[in-house]
């Protein structure tokens, strides 16, 4: 079973607009990560936010984490056609021997030129 759930399932925006997607999860986490997947390809790691962090930036990406609500958001600013992809959140749990990532079903983002 999957731990995370992304919202919305699909998003279509115009180039230059911002894209926001959300992730909710069920159990306590150690880290939350966001990955991008282009069609037919593997996952590319975007950003990792630790459970004691609230916000993190990387280039045009901004991630927030609210552990009280068990939710995270990914914002892509000034979107480009190349940002068209599926985006997944993934969590791991704060146990010494637990390292497996649990993924949501993803948000499919289409950026129109």
């Amino acid at each position, binding site marked *: 079973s*999957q731990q*995370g759930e992304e919202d919305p399932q699909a998003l279509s925006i115009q180039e230059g607009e911002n894209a926001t997607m959300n992730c909710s999860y069920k159990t306590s986490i*150690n*880290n939350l*990560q966001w*990955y991008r997947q282009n069609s*037919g*390809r*593997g*996952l*590319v*790691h975007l950003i*990792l936010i*630790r459970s004691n962090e609230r916000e993190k930036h990387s280039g045009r990406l901004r991630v927030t984490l609210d552990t009280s609500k068990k939710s995270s958001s990914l914002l892509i600013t000034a979107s480009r056609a190349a940002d068209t992809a599926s985006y*997944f959140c*993934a969590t*791991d*749990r*704060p*146990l*010494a*021997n*637990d*390292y*497996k*990532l*649990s*993924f*949501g*079903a*993803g948000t499919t983002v289409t950026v129109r030129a």
Partner: protein
Amino acid sequence: GAGVSQTPSNKVTEKGKYVELRCDPISGHTALYWYRQSLGQGPEFLIYFQGTGAADDSGLPNDRFFAVRPEGSVSTLKIQRTERGDSAMYLCASSLTGGGGNNQPQHFGDGTRLSIL
């Protein structure tokens, strides 16, 4: 340096056949993971190696699935008596170290798309 390499990129075979999927992790990465991804879903964990040993194989769906990493580098996922339900994208990932709380991102290969006819 080179990323995670998976071969073949596509595999089509008949039901009942045996298949092997290969993963070559990033050099120096001790942790290696296999995931399976069905269409429209996120990846689901199958097995984790720390060095040569399978530290957790709890995600393997049944005993037709087996994986090895004999020298602590390349790993092979083996599926016996394949079924149509095994059709999926099989993804391999590696990270510098493993273990809980290590704050290490996992780096993924492009996967092997397995189709069972």
